[in-house]
């Protein structure tokens, strides 16, 4: 008996499945696209530099005698306590590298879809806006957590391993939740921040400049206004200052800026709320097919 495969269109005999994480393909593709960007791998590896430096710090803290000659100042780098973690989490270089990662991985997340009208393809599938935003946000979760939670936990565990005892855990039981809390705060904020800017324009270049400029601009404004008014509340303008203040609160350290810590949380969550509203209004089903 012989058969010839029927030419032309062939049906697919499989069955469509109701997926438990309908947004996961969006995230996976977003991450793939980020890694395909030129120079991304270089930037991504460079942004782990602070983690390595602090890891070395932990190693030295265990081998104090061998490195006696080296340590003059930099006491806090060696004493491993919440201050140590706060310094890691709020150092300028790490925050700057995170913004750079946002530029590479996040700028085009929604902007490219708007530019190439891909929204119609997404929403003609059985996914809704919630899944779309969650999928896109998860791309940023991946990169920011990779720079906050992962190194934080590694440093914590390595300290336990190097010191051979659970002193750090017992003396600061709340440190682990603090690390997780701070990482979550930063991740959620940057997700909203990037998606908001990415949804504002079709032009990825314009979004890149916005992400970059607003972060730096907020600091410049703080610099100027502080120069004029000397009042500490002015630090609320700067995103970086808010992160540092929130970090100090979470890690129970001395507040770097003389205003009540909760204000920083208010500012950060306020921005998240605004961007949620704008995102909801800007990506509407109806203008998907104009």
């Amino acid at each position, binding site marked *: 008996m012989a058969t010839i495969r029927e030419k032309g269109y062939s049906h697919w005999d499989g069955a469509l499945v109701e997926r438990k994480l309908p947004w996961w393909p969006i995230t996976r593709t977003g991450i793939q696209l980020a890694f395909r960007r030129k120079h991304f791998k270089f930037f991504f590896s460079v942004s782990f530099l602070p983690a390595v430096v602090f890891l070395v710090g932990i190693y030295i803290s265990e081998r104090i005698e061998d490195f006696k000659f080296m340590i003059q100042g930099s006491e806090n780098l060696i004493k491993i306590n919440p201050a140590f973690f706060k310094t890691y989490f709020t150092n300028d270089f790490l925050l700057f590298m995170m913004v750079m990662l946002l530029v590479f991985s996040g700028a085009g997340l929604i902007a490219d879809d708007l530019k*190439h009208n*891909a929204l119609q393809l997404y929403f003609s599938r059985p996914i809704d806006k919630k899944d779309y935003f969650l999928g896109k946000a998860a791309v940023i979760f991946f990169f920011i957590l990779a720079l906050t939670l992962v190194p934080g936990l590694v440093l914590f565990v390595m300290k336990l391993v190097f010191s051979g005892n659970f002193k750090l855990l017992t003396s600061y039981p709340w440190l682990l939740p603090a690390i997780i809390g701070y990482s979550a705060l930063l991740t959620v904020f940057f997700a909203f921040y990037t998606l908001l800017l990415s949804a504002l324009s079709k032009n990825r270049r314009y979004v890149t400049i916005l992400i970059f400029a607003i972060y730096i601009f907020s600091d410049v404004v703080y610099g100027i206004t502080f120069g004029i008014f000397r009042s500490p509340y002015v630090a609320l303008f700067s995103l970086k200052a808010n992160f540092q203040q929130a970090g100090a609160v979470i890690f129970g350290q001395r507040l770097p800026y003389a205003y009540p810590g909760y204000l920083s949380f208010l500012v950060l969550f306020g921005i998240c709320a605004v961007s949620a509203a704008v995102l909801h209004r800007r990506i509407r089903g109806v203008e998907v097919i104009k």
Partner: protein
Amino acid sequence: MSLEVKDLHFSYGKIAALSGVNLKLDGGAAGLLGPNGAGKSTLLRILLGFLTPAKGDGKVLGYDIRHQRPLIRRSVGYMPEDDCFIAGLDAVSFTSYFGELSGMPRQEAMKRAHEVLFYVGLGEARYRLLDTYSAGMKQRLKLAQALVHDPKLLFLDEPTAGLDPHGRQEVLELIKDISSAKDIQVLISSHILSDIEIICSDVVILNKGKVAAQGKLQDLRSIDYSLFELKVTGDEGLFRRELESLGCRVDETEDRILKVYMPAERDRMEIFRAAAASGVQVRHFVKSQTSLEDLFAQTVGVD
């Protein structure tokens, strides 16, 4: 019944887009025609579940358009009008990505993507980045992503726009194959009437938010009086006088086609006798029916 809509109303603010649309379609390929702003894309959006109709209801593939939208979208393929793709992806990952979003397991989506890309003629370009794709290739890619999850109903918005003559013929053949041999209902919204004439058996003409005409293409185009279109070589003047003596009215279009209105009692063979009498060769002889363009113009009621 794959698609049925009753008394559909919708308006954007005060502009009424649809005011009472009734439609029943099943099987084969149907053309959705209408001037710009007649409500075609609004109807499409409601059928795809992007908009909730103000009044009226309907079923697509048996699913209710108000309450079972995800189910509709799972078994419907939509090919949008404008160019849409995702920069940085190649065709295979693009197609399997949207297959996955439709609910296909990842491996199945990957396998199916290759099949569908070969089918639409992008076989050898399927690993290239989409940014390097020409307008025609992007058009085929859109068809591929609409077919990857094997839909029961296919909405095509200007499927042959931007394609070169070969590309248009090939896509038309694909659509013909899909709609006829493979029992997938196809609804095509297009401004190129010659394409609709080739592919579609049914036609729906919308105008100002209402259905101006609907039915089989043959019936809509047939005309009752006997009108023939002829092309002849030789002395046309003599031939015309001969025909007029038989009581027919003759006029000539711009590209030298003779339109002969025959009185009912006359037999068409007399045209040939008249031709022979005036030493003229009949080279083209067709019983005329209104062209789709004239039908469109009449139903939409302009010039």
